[in-house]
């Protein structure tokens, strides 16, 4: 039990939690924006892969880090536009289209990576975002300072994104429009809103956030691009959106909680040694996601028009 407490109060654990949580926060926020507008975006896994590859490639080719993040966001928007174009005006199955977007974005990323670097056996690296350090304002705070000092700017970007998305969704006319087309598109249409336009815009914005989440992995958490590096994080984000009841604040909480479990299991794994096969630990995030879905299933208040295509003039 003492070991457990020691782990819980160590600054390095909480620093790890924030690092693990960052891509999940961005991915969950992105998916949340899409779903609030009534579009399930299963392209998330592929869009995160695309963001990771494009962001890294931009920096590798000589761009600076923020340019890499921007290019990743733009690539995410393009993939989001593809998903939205097929599911919103054409009303195609959001499930199958999303899987298609994931397959396309993933394979395009791998193809491009191999085309540019045909013979890379050890993945080439870039200089990633650096922690903000002890000397910074946040790093010199008491108690939480050491945790905050170890974070990179993209983590702060993710935390700011939570506030911005929450504010836009709940306090601005744009957010009201997004929530309205996700709850009752016919009523939104009667109010003179362009349902198709709002939905496409929301999916593109959400996809940009997902792609930045992917770019965090190659430009901040690691310094190279690996195949399969997203490793189901996108699907976990979809479960987290349900867990968060489609609220940005709860999405942050869910991502942090999830990251805490993930960080703890890594520590416990080091303590317990080889008594339990390591695969059991690696399974935990996925098992936890399914458990979260089951726990929330009774209370899940899905946006009413989620996965319901809207065609003007049709009942």
């Amino acid at each position, binding site marked *: 039990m003492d070991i457990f407490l020691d782990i819980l109060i160590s600054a390095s654990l909480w620093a790890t939690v924030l690092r693990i949580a960052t891509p999940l926060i961005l991915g969950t926020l992105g998916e949340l924006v899409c779903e609030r507008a009534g579009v399930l975006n299963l392209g998330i896994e592929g869009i995160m892969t695309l963001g990771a590859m494009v962001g890294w490639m931009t920096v590798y080719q000589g761009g600076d880090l923020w340019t890499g993040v921007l290019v990743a966001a733009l690539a995410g928007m393009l993939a989001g536009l593809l998903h939205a174009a097929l599911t919103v005006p*054409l009303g195609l199955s959001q499930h199958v289209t999303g899987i*298609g977007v994931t397959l396309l974005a993933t394979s395009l990323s791998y193809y491009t990576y191999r085309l540019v670097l045909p013979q890379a056996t050890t993945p080439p690296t870039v200089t990633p975002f650096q922690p903000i350090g002890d000397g910074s304002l946040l790093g010199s705070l008491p108690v939480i300072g050491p945790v905050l000092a170890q974070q990179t700017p993209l983590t702060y970007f993710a935390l700011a994104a939570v506030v911005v998305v929450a504010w836009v969704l709940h306090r601005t006319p744009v957010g009201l429009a997004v929530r309205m087309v996700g709850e009752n598109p016919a009523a939104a249409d009667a109010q003179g809103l362009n349902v198709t336009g709002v939905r496409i815009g929301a999916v593109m914005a959400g996809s940009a956030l997902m792609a930045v989440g992917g770019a965090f992995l190659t430009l901040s958490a690691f310094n190279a691009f690996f195949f399969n590096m997203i490793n189901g994080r996108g699907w976990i984000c979809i479960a987290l959106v349900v867990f968060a009841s489609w609220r940005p604040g709860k999405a942050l909480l869910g991502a942090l909680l999830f990251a805490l479990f993930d960080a703890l299991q890594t520590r416990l794994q080091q303590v317990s040694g080889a008594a339990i096969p390591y695969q059991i630990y690696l399974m935990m995030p996925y098992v936890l996601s399914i458990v979260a879905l089951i726990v929330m299933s009774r209370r899940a208040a899905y946006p009413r028009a989620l996965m319901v295509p809207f065609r003007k003039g049709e009942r």
Partner: protein
Amino acid sequence: MRLEARTAVPLWLTLAAPAGAVLTAFVLCAGLIAWSGAPVLEAYGRLLAGAFGSRFALTETLTRATPLILTGLAAAVAFRAKLWNIGGEGQLYLGALAAVAVGSGVISLPAPLLIPVVMLVAMAAGGLLLLGPAFLKTRLGVDEVVTTLLLNFIVLLFVSMMLEGPMKDPMAMGWPQSAPVVSDAELPRLVPRTRLHLGLVIAVLAAVAVWVIKSRTVFGYEIRSVGSNPRAAAFAGVPVNWVVLRVALLSGGLAGLAGASEVMGRTGYLTLDMSPGYGYGGIVIAMLAQLNPLGCIAAALLVAGVFVGADAMSRAVAVPNYIADVLVAASLLCMLVGMLLVRYRLRWR
């Protein structure tokens, strides 16, 4: 622009849709091949020759198509009942694991008995795996797409644990692979000196069986009614949840059979890199076939051809062979639009 439902869909249009979709995907991907600096037409020529151009190429494509027919059927059956089973990959691996568990010497029976027993066990494993998400869907309304996707990762880790632990082959020089299936559980070769095995015949028979179930039995009628309108089906007295659970068993079973056919016919033992995404490929095949079981055979041949051909093309003109995955994914998206154009007419005003 608006969409107008067609009153009748001509047969030629139904057949033209997948052809048009694949052709469009090839045209779109020509840009990617040109980007790599390779001559596009020669590259596609190499792809075609590598897939269908020689006796060896043809048997390789048929070998590749065998698991794809089965995973395509698994997706087609489930999608017909609007059960979005994206877990074909996990069901395939669990089926393969079950096949090596019972097929590697635990029970000894003559081959004509052992082969069906091993296959049934694999089907049961795959079917039971999908039963969980189907149960969560019918009982608690948990979206089965996410649960089946997450289960893929869990199953792969479970297989990895088994292959590095209790089921590791002690004779495998430390590689994480299972003990081989006994020779009585091996599927015989169809053509000597190639890898083509009896699994192909089994897959084709499975397609015929699924077609009969779909269009000639009460269960098939129930599947179609649940898929097109569950509420109306419930009013008509169809036990909707029970139908979904039985579909789950059938769909997961077919994917599990794909895994068994691979270890019993092609590899002989199970490794973690056995499937290059056959489960996900099944989704593409089901859509290209417009969920028609017999169409899955043709669609699987096409997709298998793209993968086998892309390897040949990659060797000849140095285009990364991930182009095959891009081609297949693009075909899926084009096909979705194609299916829309089959069902609806575009009016520009």
